[in-house]
């Protein structure tokens, strides 16, 4: 799986970092998403898709 994030759209809601802290973090300045791993292990497929669906501004693309 590959992940792309759109930092422009991100409003720092932290849904992704709350759901999969192994893959997503946030910076302390504006809370924007920090991608820790853009090709995570297959074990993270479900939670990453869930994080993408929880994002309130659609800033995460997982495919």
């Amino acid at each position: 799986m590959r992940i792309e994030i759109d930092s422009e759209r991100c409003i720092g809601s932290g849904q992704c970092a709350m759901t999969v802290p192994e893959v997503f973090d946030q910076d302390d300045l504006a809370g924007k998403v920090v991608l820790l791993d853009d090709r995570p292990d297959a074990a993270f497929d479900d939670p990453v898709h869930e994080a993408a669906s929880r994002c309130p501004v659609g800033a995460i693309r997982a495919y």
Partner: protein
Amino acid sequence: MTTEPLPTARPTPFDPPVELAEYREHDPIRRMVYPDGHVGWLVTSHSLARKMLSDQRFSARSEFKRAPVARPSADPFFGAPALPGWLVDMDAPEHTRLRLQLAGKFTARRMKDMRPLLERIVDDQLTAMAEHGKPADLVSLFALPVPSLAICELLGVPYRDRAAFQRNSATLFSLEASAEEASRAMDELYGLMRELAKERDGNSAGLLSMLAADGTLDAEEIAGIGVLLLTAGHESTAGSLGLSTFTLLSHPDHLERLRSDPGLIDNAVEELLRYLTIFHFGVPRTPLQDVEFEGHLLRAGESITISLPAANRDPSWFADPDRLDFERKTAGHMAFGYGIHQCLGQNLVRMEMRVALPAIFRRFPGLALAVPPEEVPLKTNVSVYGVHELMVTW
């Protein structure tokens, strides 16, 4: 088709008005009449609610907002421009500047770090409830003080000011308080926040002094943010805690399931948030220009109510939506709204509920209602749903 107002009569304390399901099925966007006679729109499906809340053509500015139901005290901010710092009432780019400034202080990591503090607050309030003796009102002894103390910690309200802070927030959310009392409480809270916004010595880890130290926002914006976070976070979290406890006491099988599998708590909290959706009158939006939306012409200035409870019971997103199910997939629920205005404090609310709900039933394993369920007074006529009082015994 006659134009109806927003339906508000609930069939049970836990279920939204039945008309919402009918509207959602037949016309998920339909005309709605407001208490002042204005004819606007009501959105009830999950997909249209999401679509609208992520479409920047629909404004959140308070000068265009209109109360969807007649309330004893109409929101004083509707119809007037946003106060400094009140980002809920602003659009981009004003909203974005404030939101990003705050988001860095509300990261998932910081909220998780608050757990030990929340555990202590919860523990102290449960002790106070035990010392009070049974029967006790879980709302005034637990559900209201827990979020109030959590917000004190978050904002950095010093101990010396906490009694005043709690007294004034209690007045602000009390139905018994007169308009003058409520407005005096608001003035005192603003005064307190202005003092906190001046502290830039970096000694306090509180949010307001951190914002002051950043130097990007002015003192009036910081004070406004403080009052906004209190008003948005206190009553809503209290409502969620009180109503969730009432729900668990009324669903003994679910409570038992949670006791036997404590690991279910995170998803159970999401499900309670979805199922109960305490912002039961939804969120308001207004197109600033005429907009074509799903085959309808929405004219500039027409008020729109997006029903969060209806979206959260949409069978096209949640299978068997009227069933409380702690094991269902809860992703995509809209209890915190959606889009750029989605609740800033949602991860704090989650942490508070995850800590508080199991702790209540650990401390009082025999917790039970002290009155018949139909006598629990419900907050049907205010914008944040919940219980006014929850008399319990153990």
